[in-house]
């Protein structure tokens, strides 16, 4: 994999979030017209409340996807770049890569803060949005910048 490809994977998630936001906003603005003209099958009998909930959580949903894409990149590097066949937990993986690549502590800390918050969201279903999408993308991008250009 090329490092640029890893960046592009994260950028595609960002683009999907933007598209989803736009689509949700258009549907919300045209709710009455769309729901009166659509058949129950097409509309899936969705309530405006469902739509609002989806809209309110859309950034959080995509941060989780971004995190998964970031972790997949690191695991790809671990397997194909470092040549290890083990499957360490994420905290060990981050720490190990930080040491191997001589990363600065600030880069690791930024990702670890997001990881801890993400664990809280997943395991306790906390919906407090402590980080926004751009700050997560930036932290992950900076971490990836320490990996080799190609592996």
């Amino acid at each position, binding site marked *: 994999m090329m490092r*640029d490809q890893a*960046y592009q994977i*994260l*950028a595609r998630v*960002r683009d999907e979030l*933007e598209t989803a936001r*736009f689509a949700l906003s258009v549907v919300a603005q045209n709710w009455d017209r769309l729901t009166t003209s659509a058949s129950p099958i097409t509309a899936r009998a969705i309530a405006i409340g469902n739509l609002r909930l989806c809209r309110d959580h859309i950034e959080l949903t995509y941060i989780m996807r971004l995190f998964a894409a970031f972790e997949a990149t690191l695991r790809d590097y671990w397997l194909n770049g470092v040549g290890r066949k083990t499957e360490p937990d994420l905290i060990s993986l981050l720490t190990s890569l930080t040491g191997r690549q001589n990363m600065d502590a600030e880069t690791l800390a930024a990702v670890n803060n997001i990881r801890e918050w993400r664990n809280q969201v997943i395991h306790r279903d906390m919906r407090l949005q402590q980080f926004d999408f*751009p700050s997560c*993308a*930036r932290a*992950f*991008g*900076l971490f*990836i*910048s320490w990996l080799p250009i190609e592996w």
Partner: protein
Amino acid sequence: MTQTAKSSPSSLQEWVALVQSLAKQIQGWSQSQQWKVEEGQKTIHEDMLGVYTVPELRITASGGILHLNPIALHVAGGDGRVDLEAFPTLNRVKLVRSHNQWTIMTDSNVPLRDPWNQETFVRLAADLLN
């Protein structure tokens, strides 16, 4: 340029020429900053235009990489869009064509009211990479 156009070729040709001109402009501005510029070709598929190729740039500036990434002619709310994105920060602005000029849109969907010129580009590059 290769194309299998399904709609008005003048519109597609005009768009491709605009992107070529933008790429050339940015290439010149980047080189004046001693930044390394690599030009590639991006293949784009648009439902209304078919498949065509336009130039894309990878600029190695101080602090990271800038990618001039053409997106499409047919976009909501504009007459063409080219992204300027930065790695590793993943910051981005969109250059949206409207009223025969490039408007700089941030990811917050707020336009930057700066003219599109070399000074703006160089400042923008620093901000995107910061």
